[in-house]
């Protein structure tokens, strides 16, 4: 085994020089030059995550460490052009081989439309402006900084990636107990009640499907970020400013500049899960 590992490391090490092909639009790790080297070193051991990320919550905010990818969704833009949201949803379905079940009880949803009052129950007001609350809002995984689903998972099949803050799923490990679904305060997780394959309309050959009996959800397009692309929904809205994506810990990132400028809200802030998806209403 050791021999194999050494050999593997050699190849991997040599390939570090090649680096990521396309120029990354989004800074994915705190120290890009080192990150790949560290990754290879860590590869031999059982996952070393979780240990790094600071931010224990509690009293006062600690200085944020590393990268925390996040999203700012400008609902005003979607209200103006509802077809934009449909396009974003359709792209996500196509890119991620998401099945479309006829029966709503079996539904698998990564990003979807929902009534404003459902998405923002803590922001409902008795006499609200219908032009805002009358329109559907968009719901997806919040990639929380303190994710309740990760706390609940008994196998670490879902975990917070300490390098970029993405709450990821390892479908190979999920036992399908659905504890994470009970734990998610946003209803962002879906279970594969059946084999999803027959319900996938078109296959994207570069992405797997899922299997029956595992939980799935939005992955912030980790696979696209690795190729230097933006998440599919962000790309679908390119040039409109409807969705902005970037590092929430970087004061100069696009998301932070937008958040500094506009009033934004997070879903169910009282939960304390610190969502990384922000909304401008």
């Amino acid at each position, binding site marked *: 085994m050791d021999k194999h590992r050494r050999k593997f490391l050699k190849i991997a090490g040599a390939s570090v020089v090649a680096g990521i092909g396309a120029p990354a639009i989004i800074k994915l790790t705190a120290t890009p030059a080192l990150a*790949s080297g560290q990754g290879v070193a860590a590869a031999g051991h059982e996952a070393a995550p979780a240990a790094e990320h600071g931010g224990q919550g509690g009293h006062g905010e600690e200085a944020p460490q590393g990268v925390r990818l996040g999203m700012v969704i400008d609902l005003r833009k979607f209200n103006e052009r509802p077809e934009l949201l449909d396009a974003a949803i359709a792209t996500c379905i196509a890119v991620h081989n998401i099945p479309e079940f006829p029966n709503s009880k079996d539904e698998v949803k990564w990003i979807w439309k929902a009534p404003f009052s459902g998405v923002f129950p803590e922001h409902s007001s008795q006499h609200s402006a219908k032009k805002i609350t009358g329109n559907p809002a968009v719901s997806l995984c919040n990639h929380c900084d303190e994710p309740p689903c990760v706390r609940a998972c008994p196998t670490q099949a879902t975990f917070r990636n300490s390098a970029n803050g993405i709450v990821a799923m*390892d479908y190979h490990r999920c036992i399908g107990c659905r504890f994470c679904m009970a734990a998610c305060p946003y209803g962002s997780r879906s279970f594969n009640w059946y084999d999803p394959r027959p319900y996938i309309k078109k296959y994207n050959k570069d992405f797997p499907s899922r299997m029956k009996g595992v939980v799935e959800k939005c992955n912030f397009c980790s696979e696209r970020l*690795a190729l230097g692309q933006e998440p599919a929904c962000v790309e679908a809205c390119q040039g409109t400013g409807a969705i902005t994506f970037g590092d929430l810990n970087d004061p100069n990132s696009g998301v932070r500049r937008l958040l500094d400028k506009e009033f934004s809200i997070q879903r169910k802030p009282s939960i304390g899960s610190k969502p990384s998806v922000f909304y401008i209403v």
Partner: protein
Amino acid sequence: MYNKGTIIPGLIIFVLFVTFPIWFNGLTTAGDLPKPELPPGGEKKCVESADYMRASHMQLLNKWRDNVLRDGNREILEIDGKKYPKGLQTACMNCHSQKEKFCDSCHTYAAVEPYCWDCHLTPKETASKEAIH
């Protein structure tokens, strides 16, 4: 010898039954060594030696899986100028495009059913539903 008439046929049946795997595999093709078909594109080089891959492709795949999914290490391997993203579907199947003639030949022989294909799509499968991109 008592009960010759029952004991001897009984013994024969017993021996035949116990040796079933041996003569069955000898008479049929089930025992023939599998001959996995090499990549149709004529690709000769893999990310590792054939010996290593034959013995340890599953460990390598597991390692790639953990690298990509858990450690966020999606480094693209470059070997002899050829680039390999760490992925069964995105790297392996590009050359070994016929899972049925490559993977399955040994897996069937060894009677293993890896669950890779529950999620990962084979080229044949993607072709069955018009792929995008």
